[in-house]
Structures are given as structure tokens and as C-alpha cells.
């Protein structure tokens, strides 16, 4: 979203010429700075690779990720063993053994294909939980800040209570109530992250609620919702985007932890956390089954962390560059 969208359409028309020749906007500036920052570029590259793998998982995968090779004909499955180490023919692995780039898991499934399919889940988990939390958090924060009084107090004290728990512990407790499963785990992580966004939105609502341009709108008889969505909330967008990007990183880590404990994604879903959890006792005999999902989770989280940090710096006009 650009700052132009903030203005009502008639004003955009009136100032059209001025906007066209304006040298830069906050967002254009921010993007320029983002692309100059080395760590942000690394983050974006990693994220780009992840998105690519997630989009083209069907093309990239060599086997079906969820079908064990127990049921397939002898001649195809010949030589495939449980928890085989990685075998790539061009890297010197003997031609007699079937090629599995990252080896096989405990159920005779191709581990590379499972890893590839896992990428989409990671992204889905990150975006849905944070999206859910941002929508509800914005609603709660906007109502609290705009209404004030007892409603503000009630909502924010509730948020304080949620923040008083270590997030993973509360997520575990919520999943215990809802029952294990990926959807419930996502719901739990989403609920736990609401307060962060509610606080951000409430703070920016409070800071512009009494601003002259909002008073002017009110004097002109502009509706409450219009003021809220067109005048006040755009101010909260920058911190929300930064917090959201960093929040995705945390959400992915927490979801992986829940799946690892068996409370999130259930087998045979190729989700990295649950893949790691399923093979964790094999770390001494088949370390590759633990190593690769962990690295994948780490790189995904790292990409969002780097991007979030980069955006925070790029979007902060006070920073001396």
C-alpha cells in the first residue's frame, strides 16, 4: 500500500500532478534502503528460494512424500532400506543403491521429497497465524484505543494476562484444550500473538486520535469507521508490517516446537517440526533425518528475521543513513 491510497479518490485526482512528480515516498525510500542492506538481501534471497520450492514442490519432488515404499513393486523398491543415508549417484554413491538425495526415513519414504513438500507448510503456518493475529489484534487495539474508558481497560488487561504467560507454554495449554492437530496449534499460536499487534495498533490510534486532521474530519461529519480505517490505521501500518514479519519467524519456531512435541501437525503430513519429532530418537543412528528439517526450519526463520530487521531499519525515518 502506498501513501497515495490513504487519501480519498477526489483528493488524489486534485493532486495528481504533484504526486506524479514527487521524488520519493516513504515506501520507495524504504525499498531502496532495504535493497542496500546486505542482511536484508540475504533474507530476501532465502525467502525467495523458499517461496520457489513451496510453489513448485510437485515439480521438484522426486517421489510421493506420504506413500511408504512398502506397497510398491519389488523391483522398484529393491535396495531401499529404512533410514538410508543420502545417496546421490553423481557424488559417488554406488549405482546399485537407489538414489535418494536426502536418504529415506523410518517409513521408507523419500526424505528429500518430504522436505520439499514441507516448505509450503512452513509458509502457510507463518502467514496464517500472523494474519489471524494481526486481524484480531488490530480489531482489539483499534476498539480499545478509539473507544477508551472501561472497554479499553478490559481489552488491554486481557492482553496483559495473555502476555504474562511464556508464549509456548500458553500455546501448549490451549492445544491441550482444543486437542492436538495443526489447525488447533495454529489457532493457539495465533491467539497467543494477538496482544503484540493489539498494543501496536492501540498506541498509534491514541497518538493520532486527537490530531488536527482527525478533528477536522470529525467536524466535517466523516463517519467513525471511515476515520478509523482511512486516517488512523494507515499510521499503524509500518510498525505492524515490521512486527508481523518478525512475528512470522516466531510463529514458525513455535509451530515447529508444538509439532515436535506431537501437538501440532500429525504424521504423515510432511511438516518439518513433526518430521524432526518423529525421528528424534534416531539422532545417533540416522542424524540426517534430524539435521535437514532443523536446518530448513532455521533458514526459514532466519530469512524472516533478517527481512524484519532490515525493514525496521528501512522504515524508520529517524535513522541516520
Amino acid at each position: 500500500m502506498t501513501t497515495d491510497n490513504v487519501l480519498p479518490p477526489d483528493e488524489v485526482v486534485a493532486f495528481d500532478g504533484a504526486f506524479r512528480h514527487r521524488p520519493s515516498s516513504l515506501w520507495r525510500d524504504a525499498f531502496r534502503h532495504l535493497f542496500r542492506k546486505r542482511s536484508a538481501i540475504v533474507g530476501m534471497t532465502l525467502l525467495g528460494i523458499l517461496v520457489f520450492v513451496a510453489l513448485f514442490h510437485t515439480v521438484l519432488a522426486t517421489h510421493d512424500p506420504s506413500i511408504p515404499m512398502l506397497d510398491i513393486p519389488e523391483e522398484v523398491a529393491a535396495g531401499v532400506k529404512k533410514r538410508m543415508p543420502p545417496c546421490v549417484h553423481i557424488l559417488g554413491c554406488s549405482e546399485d543403491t537407489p538414489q535418494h538425495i536426502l536418504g529415506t526415513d523410518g517409513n521408507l519414504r523419500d526424505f528429500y521429497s518430504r522436505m520439499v513438500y514441507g516448505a509450503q507448510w512452513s509458509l502457510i503456518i507463518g502467514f496464517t497465524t500472523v494474519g489471524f493475529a494481526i486481524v484480531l489484534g488490530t480489531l482489539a487495539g483499534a476498539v480499545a484505543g478509539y473507544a477508551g474508558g472501561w472497554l479499553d481497560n478490559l481489552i488491554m488487561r486481557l492482553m496483559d494476562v495473555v502476555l504474562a504467560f511464556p508464549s509456548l507454554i500458553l500455546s501448549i495449554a490451549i492445544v491441550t484444550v482444543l486437542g492436538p492437530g495443526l489447525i488447533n496449534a495454529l489457532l493457539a499460536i495465533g491467539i497467543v500473538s494477538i496482544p503484540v499487534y493489539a498494543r501496536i495498533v492501540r498506541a498509534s490510534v491514541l497518538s493520532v486520535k486527537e490530531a488536527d486532521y482527525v478533528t477536522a474530519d470529525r467536524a466535517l461529519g466523516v463517519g467513525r469507521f471511515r476515520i478509523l480505517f482511512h486516517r488512523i490505521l494507515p499510521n499503524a501500518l509500518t510498525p505492524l508490517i515490521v512486527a508481523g514479519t518478525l512475528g512470522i519467524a516466531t510463529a514458525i519456531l513455535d509451530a515447529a516446537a508444538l509439532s515436535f512435541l506431537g501437538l501440532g501437525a500429525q504424521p504423515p503430513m510432511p511438516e518439518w517440526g513433526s518430521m524432526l519429532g518423529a525421528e528424534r530418537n534416531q539422532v545417533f543412528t540416522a542424524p540426517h533425518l534430524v539435521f535437514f528439517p532443523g536446518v530448513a526450519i532455521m533458514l526459514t526463520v532466519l530469512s524472516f528475521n533478517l527481512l524484519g530487521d532490515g525493514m525496521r531499519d528501512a522504515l524508520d525515518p529517524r535513522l541516520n543513513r
Partner: protein
Amino acid sequence: MTGYIARRLLLAIPVLLGIVFVVFTLVRLIPGDPCRAALGERATDEICEPYLERRGLNEPIPVQFVLYLRELLRGDLGDSYRQGRPVTQMLVERLPVTLQLSLFALLFAVAVGIPLGIMSANWHNSSVDVGTMVVANVGVSMPVFWLGLMLQYVFAILLKDTPLKLPPSGTLQAGVIIPPLYETYGWQVSGALKTTLDFLSNMHALNALLSLDFKGMADALRHLILPAVALGTIPMAIIARMTRSSLLEVLGLDYIRTARSKGLKEWTVIMRHGLRNAMLPVVTIIGLQFGILLAGAVLTETIFNLSGVGRALYEAITARDYRVVEGFTLVIAVLFVVINLIVDVSYAYLDPRVRLQ
């Protein structure tokens, strides 16, 4: 200062009540009644009716909440459905293990994180800085459970023929027994004092130190290294980043230039003048890591076979032992609030400006 502490304590009361309410509600929302959860398939109406009656579980929910609060105020967290023991008794066994682990993890985080941050700020934009920040960024992005498993593999398998070999489990070596303090010294104790001593004795390293059992202590410490490093890595990375940015900010101030122009050694400028002021936000961050440590303990303890609060919580969840889940979640949350309170107060003590706001 007293006024500030009193105000903070008063503000904590509604939060604590809220926590109790949330935990109470969550456990009541679990489908099925506690009797069936406790007895499983053996539960019939004839057995369950008196069971629910005796525990006040047939009362309306608001009445149950008041009863529950009354129990809590007496320090009673109820009995475990599965083990039939008081939850508080389990807590005396489990909490010290987690506290000891968290303490060592925090020690690692501070001992490594602060020097890394200082180095990074001192050689700003150099390869040292870049390297440190790569370590810090990777550190915050690592799943705790994965790091734990990888450390086990590296130190117990890959390095098994070297002096660096470390045990992959957090429990003491078979055969190493460190008896409770009162047994070592032959004290006759009972009641609250015995509970306190039991609590202390379950921190094996401390217990061994106080019993002057240095062999036992060495064993306890050796088993603590890997879990503590796994658990402490994320806080370490956060502390390193905070130290760096805070120190960089301070080093740009005028009085640092004055100190330099006086001809002070660079080391003195950074350590005596810079770090002292840069430490304020770092202290806050260190305190806030406690929540991360408590949550991470669930994962670390599961991997390293440590029987602490975290693993107990996990086991209770899988066994559907809701009374334990309720009690332990509550204790962890209350601990978290108390620690945050201490951090706030100490921050106000260190920085008078906070008190005046």
C-alpha cells in the same frame, strides 16, 4: 522507590488473578469431566457421582472458581489424577531441576553474549562484527530442540574418542547418587524445613557443592553443559545483539569523546565509561529471557531426559493429567510475572528516570 514498588505490586494483582482465571477456564473447557479423565474406561456414574461431589465439581462454575481460589491461597494445587500425589510435592521435585538448568543456561548466555556484543561494537563493521552478528542471527533462528539433538550427536558420537566427549543426557551417571543435604549431615528435619532442603537438594550441582562432594559435582556439571548450551543459545544471541546496539549508541555520545580526548585507554573508555551506561537495557533483556528459558525448558528437558517442570508438563499433557497441567502452567506463569516484576523494579532502581514517569 517504595512507592514505585508498591504500585507495581498492586498492578501485578489483577494480572495474577487473570492468570488464575485463564488457567482455570482452560482446564474446565477440556471436554469430558475430570473423573473420566482420571479413571478412564473404568469410570461409571456410580463411581463418578461421589467423586465429583467430594471435589465440589458438581457446583456451579463461579462457586468452583471461588473454591479453587481458596485452595490456591492455602498453597494446595490438588492431586495428580495419575499418580495420586499432591501436585505441590511433584513441584518440589521438578522445579529445582528446571531452575538449575535455566540458571546455567542464563550464565552461559551472559558469559558468552556480553563479550560477543562488546567485541562487535568495538570493532564495528569489521569482520569480527559481521561474524558475531551472523552467529547471533543464526542463534535466534535455531529451534531449541534441534540444537539440543545436534549437540548430542556432535559431543556424544562424533567426539566420543576425544576429551571433549560429553554425555547426551542431563541426568546423573548411573551409580552417582548425591543424597539430600540432611542425610549427608545427619540432620533431623521435618515439615517446611525438610521441604526446603529437599527442594535445594534436587539442584544436584548445588547439593553436591554444599555436601562437599566434588566428584558428584563434576558429574552433575558435565551433564548440565549440553542442555544449558542448547537452552541458552537463543538468549545468548539476543543478549549479544542488545549489548552491541546499546554500546554502539553510548559510544557515539559526547562524554565518550571527552573520555577519549582525556587520553584514556580505549579499553577503559569502553569498559568503564561505555559499558556501564550501555548495560541498562541489557539487564532488562537478561531478565526477560527467563520466559524464553522456561518455555524452552519443555523442549530441552524432553530431549535431555531431565525430569524438570517442562518435561513433567509435557508428560502430564500426553497422560491427560489435567490437574498437573493446571498446577504447573500456573506456577510457570506466576514465576514469569514475578521475574518480570523484579526486572522492572531493578530497572527503576538502576535508572531513576523510570521511577519519575
